[in-house]
């Protein structure tokens, strides 16, 4: 075991912290300017600086998917990217999916299929599913399961989550065929 004495801790703590930086994010269509420390994750920026608490902090290590948002149209784990790295990016969170009172088709399908119990993973599930449908790689329920494996639901609502996503996938396909 390392038992080096850490006598310099107090001295180090008096060193001034790096300056915050002003960054611009386009969040759910609105341009926002915020000041962030270098270590502020995109997740913390959304929740703590922009009061968009729909995006959830689950594991904070990229393992659960609760923090999934869309950055420049692609689903990512917002806990594993620094806000300062995303300066200038377009971000879509769960708050940006509905159009007024009209739910996004995936939100509606999650309600119809009872695709949650506690609901904590749901914003990440839905944002991830939006990304999944945009990617157009899933053709079957098996594909949905595989490509949604980055979103964990500890209540175990997976069958209903897959059913909700499949319903929207099928209706989009039909819409595309018309």
């Amino acid at each position, binding site marked *: 075991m390392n038992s080096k004495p850490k006598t310099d801790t107090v001295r180090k703590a008096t060193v001034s912290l*790096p300056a915050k930086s002003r960054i611009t994010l386009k969040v759910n269509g609105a341009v926002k300017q915020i000041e962030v420390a270098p*270590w502020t994750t995109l997740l913390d920026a959304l929740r703590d600086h922009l009061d968009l608490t729909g995006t959830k902090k689950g594991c904070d290590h990229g393992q659960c998917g609760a923090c*999934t948002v869309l950055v420049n149209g692609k689903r990512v784990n917002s806990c594993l990217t*620094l806000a*300062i790295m995303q300066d200038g990016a377009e971000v879509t969170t769960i708050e940006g999916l509905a159009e007024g009172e009209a739910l996004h088709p995936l939100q509606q399908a999650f309600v119809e299929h009872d695709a949650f119990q506690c609901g904590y993973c749901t914003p990440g599930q839905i944002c*991830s599913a939006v990304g*999944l449908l945009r990617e157009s*790689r899933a053709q079957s329920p098996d594909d949905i399961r595989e490509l949604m494996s*980055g*979103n964990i639901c500890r209540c175990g609502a997976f069958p209903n989550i897959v059913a909700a996503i499949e319903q929207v996938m099928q209706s989009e396909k039909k819409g595309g065929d018309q």
Partner: protein
Amino acid sequence: MNSFTYTRADDVPSAVREVAADGASKFIAGGTNLIDLMKENVMRPSRLIDISHLALNEINSTAGGGLRLGALAKNTDVAYNEEIEQRYPLLSKAILAGASAQLRNMATVGGNLMQRTRCCYFYDTATPCNKREPETGCSAIAGFNRGHAILGTSVHCIATHPSDMCVALAALDAVVHVTGPKGKRSINFAEFHRLPGDTPNIDTNLGADEIITGVELPAEGFPEHHSYLKVRDRTSYAFALVSVAAALEMEGETIKEARLALGGVAHKPWRDQQAEKLLSGQGPSREDFQQVAEALLRDAKGYGHNSFKIELAKVAIVRALSQAAIREGHS
């Protein structure tokens, strides 16, 4: 996370200058591993040099008939690239066997090579770990080592390299292009990652002042006969217990060339060209595949919890080679 400063690099020369000027600085690109390690206090860079905006994300043809993957190409973009899917399906399948869709949207080619082990003791700063802190000891050797290495280990470290993509790149004989203060150089994939030896804190032969600019795939991609077989505790979003990248070049019923790389079993993607040569000129047969598997694992050593991997690797090799021979393709 500890305090650090942040700077965005505008081009490769300035990125190299920045990293060479501060030994405690690190490049950041996708960030999916580094930010996690910083949150865990395992890595504590003084300065992050953001290279994610450098123009290194293209996938281009090379003069030699191969492809060059930009170091910043996202895992998703490589895996779903049409030419990769057609000419190097082994690579595409290996990438898609790893991580989650979100992580693949963030993670880059270069970052995949540079990711650290997922050994739980490396992550746990309360325990000794020679990789995290040299000369403190290895907690895994006599600890919980179910996921650990069985080949190429040392008394100092039995960690594994966690990548799927790198297993395919090893089988494909990829070449890593890097740039440092003294200019450009190329590193054969087999020489890029290191065995732990007595310096398990050093994962790769990339200099601290060098940057990966791209990974080159040779012209031969084994599109006809290949398999990426990944065995893990759950069927998606888990690291490999054992993975096998198998590629065969066949002439009729005869194997002209065989490539085998193993993941999840060593500190680097494991190749054994002597064992591979046993298949040259043979017809594909279960007996020969078994013989190759035995040869590949002849020096394997289990540490208790992970001893099952020796037999698992053998059966995985036989299955992957069988799949490759009959063009079944993938796991």
